[in-house]
């Protein structure tokens, strides 16, 4: 599964994206799994109220299933306009 990071989430994790092999079934589980792996993930996901997530390019809540997802993206609230 492709996992993408944007803005300061990308900066904290240190890469714009990566292939992730996971047994997580929801976004929340994926976050927990990544945070347990390395400090840079734990730092990016420390305050989940400041993190938004898209599964296959659609904004979704953290309890969304990722079982059939091809792409999961993490980023701060958007600041366009």
């Amino acid at each position, binding site marked *: 599964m492709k996992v993408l990071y944007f803005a300061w989430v990308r900066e904290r994790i240190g890469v714009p994206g990566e292939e992730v092999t996971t047994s997580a079934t929801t976004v929340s589980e994926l976050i927990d799994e990544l945070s347990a792996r390395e400090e840079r993930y734990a730092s990016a996901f420390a305050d989940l109220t400041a993190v938004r997530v898209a599964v296959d390019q659609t904004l979704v809540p953290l309890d969304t299933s990722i079982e059939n997802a091809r792409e999961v993206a993490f980023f701060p609230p958007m*600041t366009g306009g």
Partner: protein
Amino acid sequence: MEAPFDAGEVLSSFQAQLNGAGAMVSFTGIVRDTDRGDLEAMKIEHYPGMTESALTQIAEDAKARWDLNDLLVIHRYGRLVPGEVIMMVATASRHRKSAFEAADFMMDYLKSRAPFWKKEITHSGAEWVASKEDDEAALASWTTNSKT
């Protein structure tokens, strides 16, 4: 899109292909210097792929809510300097009220749902622009086609 554009030229082209509209509203966002006057550039990051679908969704949602002759939304990304145009929406309708409301709605929608992130580069460093808590609330305040 990445390339700079001129808001006036876009408005002229938008108007030229209208048919039967009586009212046209445009909103243009411009890179504004910091209060300290030290902004070197605004870097806009985006999520390729999702950006296009989000902008299309915004346009479709506005069309479903108001009787519009046409509408347009453009958003740049990359490195911009103070005074440059960041983005633009334009709406055309038979009547004034719909054109105004649809443009206002598209801006609320775009601010909290289009995947763009701004970073201000100043003499003293670089900082991500914080989202405004009321952006989500502003979008939520739209019922079918009026703001509550």
